[in-house]
């Protein structure tokens, strides 16, 4: 690649970065504006919107609610996804491809369609809208990500590891708990963080399956209907910073774990 091409390429890249981040930067800036009206110019700055967020009981309750849903749906998704991965990886049986396809499907169905489907199914099963229904929908949606990530990791586990454990006196269950599971930890942790973020971020399923209590994205949406306010910017900024921090930490953490266990 010659020098001119490189310059053009880097210009295009930075233009793209700008395009992606300008809306986010604008959103963050407006959260510090000392006026109810969103838009330029910004004449004076304030942290009132942020302190307001922490004094707003509704926002805090919603934050707790969303977090609880994220944690519980992640636990379910990780348990089911890991179980499916262990079942499918390295084994050949009739229907394997079908089970694999069905496992991956929820990740591919458009959110709105799956949300409506869940709503109909929940009513048919007699499941009340609310926390349980949201957890159920989030878990189903997230299982494929866990299964795929864990399967990829599992496929790199040498068969001799399990045989060595068996050879030294471990029955299949002990071998799984003491050898397979620790080996899968980086994948399990990584996909857990991903599930947490997906669940926390989800609007469509939470909206369709929710009861009277809103999750955070649903609350933001509700607040928007009564007019834009910099408080929403403050909430969104906090959510953005926290999720980005968790994401970056998880990425580095799992990378280190992966490196440590490579013999």
């Amino acid at each position, binding site marked *: 690649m010659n020098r001119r091409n490189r310059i053009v390429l880097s210009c295009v890249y930075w233009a793209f970065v700008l395009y992606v981040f300008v809306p986010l930067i604008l959103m963050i800036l407006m959260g510090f504006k000392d006026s109810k009206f969103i838009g330029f110019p910004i004449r004076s700055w304030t942290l009132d919107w942020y302190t307001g967020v922490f004094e707003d009981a509704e926002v805090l309750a919603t934050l707790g609610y969303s977090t609880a849903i994220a944690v519980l749906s992640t636990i379910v998704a990780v348990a089911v996804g890991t179980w499916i991965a262990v079942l499918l990886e390295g084994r050949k049986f009739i229907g394997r491809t079908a089970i694999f396809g069905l496992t991956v499907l929820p990740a591919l169905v458009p959110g709105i369609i799956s949300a409506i489907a869940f709503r109909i199914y929940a009513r048919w099963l007699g499941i009340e809208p609310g926390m349980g229904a949201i957890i159920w929908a989030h878990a189903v949606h997230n299982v494929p990500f866990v299964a795929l990530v864990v399967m990829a990791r599992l496929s790199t586990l040498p068969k001799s*590891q399990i*045989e*060595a*454990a068996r*050879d030294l*006196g*471990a029955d299949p269950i002990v071998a799984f708990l003491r050898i397979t599971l620790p080996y899968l930890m980086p994948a399990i942790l990584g996909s857990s963080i991903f599930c947490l973020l997906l669940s926390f971020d989800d609007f469509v399923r939470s909206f369709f399956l929710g009861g009277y209590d809103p999750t955070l994205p649903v609350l933001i949406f509700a607040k928007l209907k009564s007019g834009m306010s910099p408080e929403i910017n403050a909430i969104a900024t906090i959510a953005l910073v926290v999720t980005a921090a968790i994401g970056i930490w998880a990425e580095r953490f799992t990378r280190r774990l992966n490196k440590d266990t*490579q*013999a």
Partner: protein
Amino acid sequence: MNDDTPLVRLKGVTKKFGDMTALDNLTLDIARGEFVTFLGPSGCGKSTTLRILGGFERPTSGSVILNGEDVTLQPPEKRQVNMVFQDYALFPHMTVRQNISFGLELKGMDKKSIRQRQDEIMSFLELDTYGDRYPAQLSGGQRQRVALARALAPDPALLLLDEPLGALDAKLRGQVQQELKSIQRRTNKTFFFVTHDQEEALTMSDRVVVMNKGRVEQDGTPEELYFHPASRFVAEFIGETNLLSGKMRGLEGDAVVMDWFGQTLRGHAPGGAPRTGDDITASLRLEKLRFHKARPDSCNAVQGRVVGKTFLGSRMAVDLMIDEAAGASLRAFVDAETGQSFGADPVWVGWSSDAMAVLRD
């Protein structure tokens, strides 16, 4: 259990993978304290035998007796057998100490005895200073010793070794061979070693079983296999040899008389005597040929011309053309100085009947 009963007895063990027969009716005893090596090319059935002994494969038919007990259907965790894996299979998330204690914990030993056994085995294998390291922080040779320590720690009746030297470089391998042999002697454990490397098999083993296509080709001491191969496969697989094709003439006492392009030669038949008139092949090791100025008294003697010399350092390989035997050729080792002195004059070579083994096909 008295010491005369074999530790392991394989009775008519056959293993099939689909249409492929990996092991064909193997019957074999392994004595206590023996260093047995299964030697053969890949796919010969040696690894299948090892995996059957470890409990990782079930034979299609036949039975495995360990210490007088039928263990054919026992899973690996129930057997008093441990294995050193080809890739060592050390647990990457455990330290050296934790790797070694894994088998001890599962045996239900208490903490104090585990600690004691760990220290014992680690000092025995000179791993004392590596206890808190992870496998990723060790060199190839150290990992190999940890794998050995882990397998020896639970005090198995039989230790299986699956080509554990394959991953080491050539220099280290020679050293580890000596070490392994000495560890086996000091522990007085029964070692079942699997390799495709004939040199490894000859240097370490008390007994070598040569396998080919799921069957035993020959079972004997390294010396027997080298100097008295029973079959063409064994003769060619182990070391370098001259193969002489001829016709069976008959027996003279124990000696087999053969016709080799008009020359009458006498050999012996470790794999059983062929019938008179059969086409046969005999193996004659390069170092068994003796050079002479005049016709020697040895029971086999032919005259030849030196047509090629290869300097090998400590010795020289000499190629001979035997005009009297329709231009057949023989290869022989001599010390380098003697080799240098050979010129255009014909030389005599001779060998005893014990040096030449008539082979089974």
